[in-house]
């Protein structure tokens, strides 16, 4: 008669020689199951706290960017912080996205249908494909948009660079930049994180009179008002910043949206 008492079955299992096939399989299964349980528990329990951290970090970067733009802190402060509105935009048409809210943006972007491949010739920022929707921040003064904060992304020397680019209401003058994610070489390319360098973006002009993007991170000192100082020893990182700014203010980036803001459609 088969013994069904779990304790004695367990004892019998433990006393089986280690080299038997059944025991090998069972040990492998039990260890995997226990480990899977531990990992899952840790992930599930800690996920809300991690999401909170990420949101707080994004918030802090945005606040730092606003603080860095001259006169902006007072403007936002005067309106009680509510002046800065969050908008999800459709990059293809340059309009506010009708169905997608900041809450559903993550879900929408996990669908490959909402991404557009960039042809290699146009892909100056080295990102290969671009989301069709992006969450931007607008500051209004009466009816007019006086500041737009646009998330941009590009490929640097060691990996992806993410940043928030702040443009004045004329969509021509830069108000500031905040690097939100980078993995450039410490001491060289990673100096794009330095506030002093980021502050030099304020007041720079994006386009020339003919309307083509002229913004450049210079080699060495900035000479024109389209240029910011280059970072010594980090030519590739400097070029990457130039390319990503130019890409995102161009026709495949926020170009249509910026045209709509210039036409006062926002």
């Amino acid at each position, binding site marked *: 008669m088969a013994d069904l008492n779990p304790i004695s079955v367990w004892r019998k299992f*433990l006393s089986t020689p*280690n*080299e038997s096939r059944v*025991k*090998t399989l069972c*040990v*492998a299964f039990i*260890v*995997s199951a226990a*480990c*899977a349980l*531990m*990992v899952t528990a*840790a*992930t599930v329990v*800690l996920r809300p*706290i*991690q999401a909170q*951290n*990420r949101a707080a*970090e994004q918030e802090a970067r945005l606040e730092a960017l606003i603080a860095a733009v001259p006169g902006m802190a007072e403007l936002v402060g005067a309106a009680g912080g509510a002046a800065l509105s969050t908008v999800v935009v459709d990059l293809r048409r340059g309009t506010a996205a009708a169905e997608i809210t900041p809450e559903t943006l993550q879900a929408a972007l996990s669908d490959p249908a909402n991404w557009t491949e960039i042809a290699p010739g146009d892909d100056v920022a080295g990102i290969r494909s671009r989301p069709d929707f992006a969450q931007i921040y607008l500051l209004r003064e009466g009816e007019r948009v006086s500041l737009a904060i646009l998330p941009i992304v590009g490929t640097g020397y060691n990996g992806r660079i993410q940043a928030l680019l702040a443009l004045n209401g004329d969509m021509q003058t830069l108000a500031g930049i905040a690097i939100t994610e980078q*993995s450039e*070489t*410490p*001491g060289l390319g990673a100096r794009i994180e330095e506030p002093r360098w980021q502050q030099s973006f304020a007041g720079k002009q994006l386009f020339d009179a003919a309307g083509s993007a002229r913004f450049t991170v210079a080699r060495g000192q900035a000479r024109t008002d389209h240029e910011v100082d280059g970072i010594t020893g980090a030519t590739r990182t400097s070029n990457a910043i130039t390319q990503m700014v130019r890409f995102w203010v161009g026709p495949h980036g926020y170009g249509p949206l910026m045209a709509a803001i210039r036409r006062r459609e926002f």
Partner: protein
Amino acid sequence: MAAAEGLWGTLTAPLIRQNPVTLQILGICSALAVTTSLDTALTMATALTVVIVCAAGVISLIRAHIPAAIRLIVQIIVVASMVIVVDQFLQAFFFELSQRLSVFVSLIATNCIVLGRTESFARANPPLRSMVDALGSGLGYGLVLVVIGATRELFGAGRLLGIQLLPLAEEGGWFTPLGLMLLAPSAFFLLGGLVWAMRSLWPEQVEDTEFSPHEIASQD
């Protein structure tokens, strides 16, 4: 009494006499990568110590029932799970630090010190003794990380734990930071120097030469 002394010996041996980094030259990849500042070095050392102690305890508990054929896989899966838990914990409660450590916490799973201790010690010893041995190895690794991390942060940025100790020339002080200290090669130089210093102080750590250079016949 003898047992306690044995445990004390197990704990202290890997600190200097049997240091896993400087004597066995194990785990130097992460030792080079995370030592640009003291706080990342401390966090990494703590994370590794927690992982190695827990893994050694678990492996030692089930040591009698690990089939030899799959012993390495069992050890790796236990270690890897611990690493994921520690990584998730850091992301939840030390978000900023975990951003800076990026992938290196996950790479503890491949750290030779961890697998080395579970394979060579925890598989043959009772839990308490294994955990003490693992703690010693973790602290030995941490000690090297802290020494190198402190040196790099102090001379590379004039700070320790983010507190400015040496006034920077840029801000009107006298200290010009050594940019090299923040780059990976400096960790090699420092680690090399540390190994050299330790082997000069404790000559018994010097390995026998495996190859002797050829005698060049003198031509007279």
